[in-house]
């Protein structure tokens, strides 16, 4: 939105640019006319000489003297030339302002009046009366009047008259009143009419040209804009295809040039030439400016290429090709290239045309480039598919790098990736919500549970109940403790399975950790009647893990053994290093027959005996497995009859 661009300003601008252009062209044409046809001399520009003082006069008079000399040379022979007859009519027929008096070898030739021509004195007097004359007598050239100013060098052509002559004298006089209508008189008239305007005309032309440029810049900026909004407004003409406008412009310019050349061939008078020029400039400016502004608007609206027949045709062809299925499209392409190759081969070998060979070469180069390009695209797409299939679901191909079917392929692959990503995100979100729910619910359970535990404890402190009540209270206490364990395990397992915990990964010594754990469980195992056989390497086994979480894992496994192993059996705890992996295993003999498969045992809430009467939440193995996997380890349960084996492995790091 810019008030500079309102229609009033634009109209004025168009008008101003037209006037300026007309001035520039007309002045230029005038200059060309005047100087190009020797109607004026460049050397006079900037002076304020009168005609007889001007360089132009000097040029004119020397031309006249040359012609006169030619005439006088011819006159001796008196030939029957048309040209001679014209000259004789001009000089001797009294049409010229030039008078001569030539004395050669005693004979006088003159066009002065007879009484003046008879004697030398008479001729001199007549020449002086005319106002400006030239006198030559063998040795000296005397210039008098206006001729004196132009210098002898301009007039020496007449010396030819005296070649191989004994003696001679010559008077050439110019009638400065220009009483006859001859070439000099014409020149004087033109000079006096136009010369005073030349200087100003040039200045005006230069200023007009600058003005024209400024206005053109304004018009270029203003094209398509108005004061109401910021959009580009197109004119009806702008919707014509670019090529048509361009062709029209070309034809118009060629026509104009041809027309001008034709007109220029004729000898127009100055004023009519100027009027004609002005009219032509006006008309052609109107047309060219219209087309120019239309192009500017189109470029601004980014329609220059799109609103063109070529682009439209290419688009239509492309769309047509796109509609075909890939197989048919490939067939068409193959057919087209085949025909093209056949044609070029024919032309190159049968017709022996070099261009066909070159075209064949370029076609080959083009197809090779396309082949290579497609190989690159294939590679990128393969990479993208591989990334997505390996779990990088947010991997995105830049579809702009691809062309044709490959672009579509890339976009579809991105779509697959996005779909997967959304599914994963949705899943993660659901899992997190579940965890939050579990956490919140267990917090809510814990509060009343606290009261239950506290008051059960208070009941016990009251003491002196009968045996039954004491039994009941004991059951209450046990079950409330179990409930507490359950809620805590529940929170833990839900956090671990969703990966919602922070791990503090550090190099730890598995041997140390097993000893530490052994110390914690020493008495518990003794109570359960279990003998632990520990086989550990002497040197440290370093792994990268979160120590307290590994303790949780091992603690759960030991607890499991303490709970379910058969009394008076041996428990085997082993740590081995195989191929860069440290494998910890614990083996025990189950007290009861395990009815579940090994795989099911690490599921949540699963216990071997199915009865759920024993203590524990059934989450121990699930917690252990998930924690191990979170830290990058493996977790395996093996079941061979009643032999129950759990082994976990971690990659060993070098200390």
């Amino acid at each position, binding site marked *: 939105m810019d008030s500079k661009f309102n229609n009033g300003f634009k109209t004025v601008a168009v008008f101003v640019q037209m006037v300026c252009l007309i001035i520039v062209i007309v002045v230029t044409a005038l200059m060309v006319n005047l100087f190009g046809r020797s109607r004026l001399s460049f050397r006079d520009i900037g002076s304020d000489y009168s005609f007889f003082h001007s360089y132009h006069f000097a040029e004119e008079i020397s031309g006249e003297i040359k012609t006169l000399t030619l005439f006088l040379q011819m006159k001796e022979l008196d030939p029957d030339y048309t040209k001679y007859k014209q000259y004789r009519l001009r000089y001797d027929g009294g049409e010229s302002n030039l008078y001569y008096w030539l004395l050669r070898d005693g004979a006088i030739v003159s066009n002065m009046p007879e009484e003046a021509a008879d004697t030398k004195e008479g001729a001199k007097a007549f020449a002086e009366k005319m106002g400006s004359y030239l006198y030559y007598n063998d040795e000296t050239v005397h210039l008098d009047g206006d001729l004196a100013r132009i210098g002898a060098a301009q007039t020496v052509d007449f010396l030819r008259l005296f070649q191989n002559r004994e003696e001679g004298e010559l008077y050439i006089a110019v009638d400065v009143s220009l009483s006859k209508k001859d070439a000099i008189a014409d020149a004087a008239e033109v000079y006096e009419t136009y010369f005073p305007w030349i200087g100003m005309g040039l200045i005006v032309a230069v200023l007009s040209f600058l003005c024209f440029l400024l206005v053109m810049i304004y018009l270029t900026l203003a094209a398509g804009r108005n004061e109401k909004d910021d959009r580009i407004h197109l004119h009806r003409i702008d919707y014509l295809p670019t090529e048509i406008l361009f062709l029209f412009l070309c034809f118009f310019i060629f026509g104009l040039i041809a027309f001008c050349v034709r007109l220029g061939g004729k000898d127009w008078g100055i004023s009519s030439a100027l009027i004609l020029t002005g009219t032509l400039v006006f008309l052609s400016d109107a047309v060219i400016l219209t087309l120019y502004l239309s192009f500017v608007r189109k470029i601004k609206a980014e329609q220059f290429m799109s609103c063109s027949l070529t682009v439209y045709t290419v688009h239509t062809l492309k769309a047509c090709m796109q509609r075909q299925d890939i197989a048919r499209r490939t067939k068409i392409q193959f057919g087209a290239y085949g025909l093209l190759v056949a044609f070029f081969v024919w032309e190159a070998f049968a017709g022996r045309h070099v261009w066909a060979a070159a075209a064949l070469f370029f076609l080959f180069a083009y197809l090779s480039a396309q082949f290579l390009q497609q190989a690159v695209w294939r590679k990128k797409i393969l990479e993208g598919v591989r990334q997505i299939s390996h779990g990088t679901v947010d991997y995105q191909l830049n579809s702009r790098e691809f062309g044709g079917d490959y672009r579509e392929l890339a976009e579809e692959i991105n779509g697959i990736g996005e779909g997967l990503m959304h599914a994963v995100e949705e899943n993660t979100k659901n899992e997190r919500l579940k965890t939050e729910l579990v956490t919140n619910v267990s917090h809510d359970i814990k509060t009343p549970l*606290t009261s239950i*535990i*506290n008051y059960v*404890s208070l009941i016990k402190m009251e003491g002196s109940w009968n045996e039954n009540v004491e039994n009941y209270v004991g059951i209450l206490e046990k079950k409330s403790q179990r409930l507490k364990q359950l809620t805590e395990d529940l929170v833990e397992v839900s956090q671990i399975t969703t990966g919602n915990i922070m791990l503090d990964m550090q190099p730890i*010594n598995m041997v140390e950790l097993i*000893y530490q754990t052994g*110390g914690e469980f020493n008495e518990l195992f003794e109570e359960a009647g279990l003998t632990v056989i*520990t086989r550990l390497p002497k040197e440290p086994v370093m792994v990268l893990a979160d120590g307290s979480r*590994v303790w949780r894992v091992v603690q759960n496994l030991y607890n499991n053994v303490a709970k379910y192993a058969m009394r008076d059996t041996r428990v085997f705890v082993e740590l081995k290093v195989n191929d860069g992996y440290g494998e910890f295993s614990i083996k025990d003999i189950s007290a009861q027959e395990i009815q579940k498969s090994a795989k099911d045992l690490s599921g949540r809430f699963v216990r071997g005996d199915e009865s759920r009467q024993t203590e524990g939440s059934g989450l121990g193995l699930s917690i252990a497995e998930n924690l191990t996997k979170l830290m990058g380890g493996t977790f395996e349960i093996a079941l061979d009859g009643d032999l129950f084996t759990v082994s976990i492995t971690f990659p060993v790091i070098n200390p």
Partner: protein
Amino acid sequence: MNRILVCDDDREIVEAIEIYLQQEGYEVIRAYDGAEALDILKKQAVDLLIIDVMMPKLDGIRATLKIREESSIPIIILSAKSEDSDKILGLNIGADDYLTKPFNPLELVARVKSQIRRYTKLGNAAESSHAVYQAGGLVINDDLKEVTVDDEPVKMTPIEYNILLLLMKNQGKVFSISQIYESIWNADAIGADNTVAVHIRHIREKIEINPREPRYIKVVWGIGYKIDKV
């Protein structure tokens, strides 16, 4: 008689805690949200505060922060939130202890006792003898070969005593099982086994209120044992 402020929005829990504490001879004041606790603290002198985290009006964390602006009384946070991050947060903002619900009432009483003893003893710190080492309420006097926890003497076997002394002398330093073995038994730890770990557990059972959540002897799993500087 020490006065204890118990603050929890669950009235039954407050009541139960009150019963336990009164049996031990403490005077109990009740509050049911953080704002009320702050009011009471302004009006009365209180020796210890037990505060729940999730409460209406003003929660335990914010209340603790406000109290710490002007008072240094012992604060025990009582919370259903059992994650490590919650415990760390509670202890970082100025609580002296953190107990998760559901808690063992006897453990709570023990912790209250420990905190009050330390608080009332504050100022007359242990004699500056070079043979006395202290970490919080745990004091070991090497001249008398005596170990006390919150002024209560603890009986120890010579090996347990030596292990504890080693850790107390080097507070903050982590000792591996073989290091401990070598310095206590003065022998190479070739046939190292559970021995050290078992001793450590015995020490913990003697000096800790809840051996599963030790305050003094910390297990650095897979690396060793240490006693933190307090």
